[in-house]
């Protein structure tokens, strides 16, 4: 049973990942990406990592992708405007992509597939993750939170600055 679910989810993930690249409309790409995230969340559940699966959906599909969709809708990219690239750029892109593939194959070739991870591990449970995170990895966790906090403050600062500039612009036009 689990094997079939795995193959279904893998197929779905690969298909939707390909469709992200192939589909012409940017909004469709974003929606396929969301589908891809769901397939990956399914894989996490198969690995008994429930917390990771749900947080993956909440953060990526529920928050980040909403903002992506938001921006795309505002940009109004639904007119299919194909970007023409020069032949040189296309050849370079194909070579770069091919090199990445070669590297990935080389990296994964040495991997021994027979020693699969035990799906019965309990590390994916919420309480276990919490205990590990707040005991063993306390410092990295806190450092990451401070990093996020500073990013948040930075985002707010950028938003604020524009507002002030607008204010000064309005004042300038008023002065004129």
């Amino acid at each position, binding site marked *: 049973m689990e094997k079939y679910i795995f193959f279904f989810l893998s197929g779905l993930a690969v298909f939707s990942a390909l469709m992200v690249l192939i589909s012409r409309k940017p909004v469709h790409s974003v929606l396929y990406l969301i589908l891809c995230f769901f397939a990956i969340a399914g894989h996490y559940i198969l690995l008994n990592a429930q917390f990771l699966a749900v947080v993956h959906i*909440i953060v990526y599909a529920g*928050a980040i992708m*909403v903002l992506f969709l938001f921006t795309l*809708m505002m940009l109004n990219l639904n007119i299919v405007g194909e970007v023409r690239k020069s032949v040189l750029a296309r050849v370079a892109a194909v070579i770069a992509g091919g090199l990445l593939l070669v590297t990935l194959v080389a990296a994964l070739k040495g991997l021994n597939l027979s020693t699969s991870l035990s799906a019965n591990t309990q590390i994916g449970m919420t309480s276990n993750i919490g205990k590990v995170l707040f005991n063993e990895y306390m410092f990295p966790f806190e450092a990451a939170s401070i990093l996020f906090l500073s990013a948040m403050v930075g985002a707010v600062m950028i938003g604020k600055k524009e507002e002030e500039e607008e204010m000064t612009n309005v004042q300038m036009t008023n002065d004129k």
Partner: protein
Amino acid sequence: MIIYLIYKITLIVIILLMSLLIAMYATLVERKFAGFIQDRYGPDRAGPWGILQPVCDGVKLFFKEEYMPNTADKFLYILGPCLTMMVALLTSAVIPWGGTITIAGYNFPLQVASSSIDILYIFAVVSMGVYGIMIGGWASNNKFALLGAVRASSQMISYELAMALSIASVIMMTGTLSLQETVNQQHTIWNVVYQPLAFLIFFICALAETNRAPFDLPECEAELVGGYHTEYSAMKLGFYLFSEYINMFISSAVISTIFFGGYNMPFISNLGLSENIVTLLGTAFLFVKIFAFILLFMWVRWTLPRFRYDQLMKLGWKILFPLALVNLIITGIVMLLK
């Protein structure tokens, strides 16, 4: 095993039908209630007290002309309402509707899926709710619909934060993400006694998440025609309108479960009834609570005027969000001192 499987499928079907039925009649109750508040009769023509009104509305929606704007993105235009409906129904899977019924040695828990991440699952589903509206609003290729969709999504994202934080303080207190466990812990004292502020924040956010008045800006007629469903007609529009009522029912169920003791009934264990009857009474009592909350949702709608959009954002980000944070910190301090 096979009995268990059949039981689960039956339970799923029952809960699905029940959600639809309750949502259907919630529309009638809403109109009757509005009539009561505005000192007029509600719908009273179809059947005694208008009880056939929802059926008539449904039939009307089915037979209306199916109109589709020719500039719409066809697939996404249809996907929008379907997604909204699906997401509205998804949450009911983890809500414990009652205790356990024992028949012929088999235990049948009245919960479709009990996992250790129920509450997180609810948040995941809630965060998905915005897609149906966004996709539908965008795919209609209409300015008003797009504006409605953008409003809806920014509103939902803003209120999700305060909602999650208010629940986080409850989770800290109970120490579990499982709803079954949360209900069991409220056997004597309900969570709302310890966390009144969290309940208030959660309730306000639930109003905003279900796009109910006073937060129904995505569809405010005065400025946006019909909001995100301007271009929808027939049953697709019906899906959007209907999912609002299902959302209301499910949010009421979640509030009753997390804050108001779920299927726990005070003093029930003193009556000396058999286990199965206690379970059934508990389920009935849960539904009483749910209906009370649905009425509260309606009462709010017909009492308060609509917010202005900047007021809505200010309330979400500058009042509810910090309040939820303070509540979280206070909960943490009290737990540390205890």
